[in-house]
């Protein structure tokens, strides 16, 4: 399998628009995912994530704009583009009278690379998905087992780019952990992962960058570290006796929760101003929490919901 030059972005989306009648699902979206990175693709339901992913796979045809995968145009060179992708849909649509093995074998035969049984077994071991489960009919599968099967079919050809729609939905915590470890291995081997997720802690843990969609448009594109810097720190002040908040806080501080002996504040500036306020009070302890990605993203989500 040859792909275009090393500097070619794994995913490149330029002015992508998809309209359904009057509804605009994706609106002039521009986005690039670099080779070797894990890009979290976020947004509320209906923000346009799945539509974008389906355009990348040529399942949907864009109204305007272009998208390419490793330099291959997703519509004009669709076969070449899909040859380098492993895809996990949000919902695994399968016929329940088939066995997991039948599904895997069919899809492996349709892929661009010969099946590497050793790698398949390695993945099965990681996900604790033995052969005997693969030989069962899909009607006997739990949600989690279907998800594992979905992951197996997307990963087993070891493609340069993985497009994963809600990959850990329905997985138990142990398998989730195995999946995160696998993502780390894939990244170390130079694979690119383009994943949508609603689990912000997961995004914070595994993604290098985050692209947040709002009403079909890119609302935020930044590294996880940069986004964390945008988030206010949280300070928790514990008092040795009950206190009352008599004066307003200086700018840069926002009270989140007030209890007689505990205050929780969002701190957007240095701590100096807060220490002045606390000086006359019977402070027992002061705890500072690291900025959380969720705090920034939730703010964007709330703006979207409005």
């Amino acid at each position, binding site marked *: 399998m040859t792909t275009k030059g090393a500097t070619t972005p794994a995913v490149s989306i330029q002015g992508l628009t998809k309209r359904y009648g009057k509804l605009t699902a994706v609106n002039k979206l521009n986005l690039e995912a670099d080779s070797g990175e894990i890009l979290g693709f976020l947004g509320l339901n209906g923000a346009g994530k799945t539509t974008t992913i389906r355009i990348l796979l040529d399942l949907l045809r864009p109204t305007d704009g272009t998208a390419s995968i490793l330099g291959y145009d997703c519509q004009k060179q669709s076969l070449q583009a*899909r040859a380098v992708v492993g895809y996990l*849909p949000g919902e695994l649509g399968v016929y329940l009278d088939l066995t997991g093995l039948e*599904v895997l074998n069919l899809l492996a035969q349709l892929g661009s690379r010969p099946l590497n049984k050793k790698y398949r077994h390695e993945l099965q071991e990681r996900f604790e998905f033995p052969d005997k489960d693969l030989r069962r009919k899909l009607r006997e599968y739990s949600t989690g087992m279907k998800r594992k099967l979905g992951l197996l079919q997307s990963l087993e050809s070891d493609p340069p780019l993985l497009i994963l729609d809600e990959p850990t939905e329905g997985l138990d915590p142990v398998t989730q952990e195995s999946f995160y470890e696998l993502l780390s291995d894939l990244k170390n081997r130079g694979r690119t992962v383009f994943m949508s997720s609603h689990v912000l802690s997961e995004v914070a843990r595994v993604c290098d960058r985050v692209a947040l969609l709002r009403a079909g448009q890119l609302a935020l594109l930044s590294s996880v570290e940069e986004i964390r810097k945008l988030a206010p720190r949280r300070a928790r002040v514990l008092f040795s006796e009950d206190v009352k908040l008599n004066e307003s806080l200086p700018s840069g501080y926002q009270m989140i929760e007030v209890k007689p002996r505990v205050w929780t504040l969002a701190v957007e500036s240095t701590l100096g101003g807060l220490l002045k306020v606390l000086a006359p009070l019977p402070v027992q302890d002061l705890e500072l929490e690291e900025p959380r990605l969720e705090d920034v993203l939730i703010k964007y989500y709330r703006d979207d919901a409005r």
Partner: protein
Amino acid sequence: MNKGLILIGYSLRRVRTLVLSMASLLALFQVFLIIVADSLHRNGSFEQLGELMPPFVRQLLGPSFIGFMSFGGIVSLGYFHLAVVGSLVGLSIALGTTPTSEIETGFIDLILSRPVARHLIITRSIAVMVISTVAVLLMMLIGTFGGLNVFAAAGATWPKRSLILSLASNLALLMLSWNAIAMAIGAASRRRSVAGGLVGLLALTMFLLDYVARAWEPAERVAWLSPFRYYNPFEMLTGEPLSVKNLIVLAGISVCGFAAAYFLYNRRDITH
């Protein structure tokens, strides 16, 4: 292996139970008709049966009535009995809407996320239909000729082999044309039930149109629209040769339907 062949093999495995069950049932039906014809022949009941028929039915069937009320006519009935034609058209519609079913379930997402060209999905479905049609009609022919050899009484006049083969060929093209119509409508639909229901209703309407037009002059003017118009078993029973014109029209409907299916499926959004 070629991706088209992989898809054909997979789809044949999925439909084999349905197709083989139907083929076996229809083959048994041929044998059953031969046993009935044999019984009527032994008892000399064909004339009595003919007299029982109302005059308007005799008038409607014309000279073919005599051909029908014979050993050969009853044996041939297995190729134009309403239940046989209905089930074969039903099978054609079911197979024709397979691509729609794959979209509805989401299975096509997994297939088309591989480097598989969209036209292969339609080509695969046509190949599966052709193979299924050949399998079903072959089983029916085996039922007919096997049944004749085993159950037909000596002295009974067998239907000509050319008649049975003509009926089977014409029926095959009728099936193919309904498959093509179903595939074209299915290629523009999101739900198999909607596409299948629509084509089923259309088939029933076209069948009734053809039926009514045989007795009611005004309907005759639009009866050419019905694919059933191009399958005339009663004419063949009177010794008319297989109409090449009918075959061309049915083949034309099939080609147009399949072309529309390719076009629509290739342009559509795959969304469920």
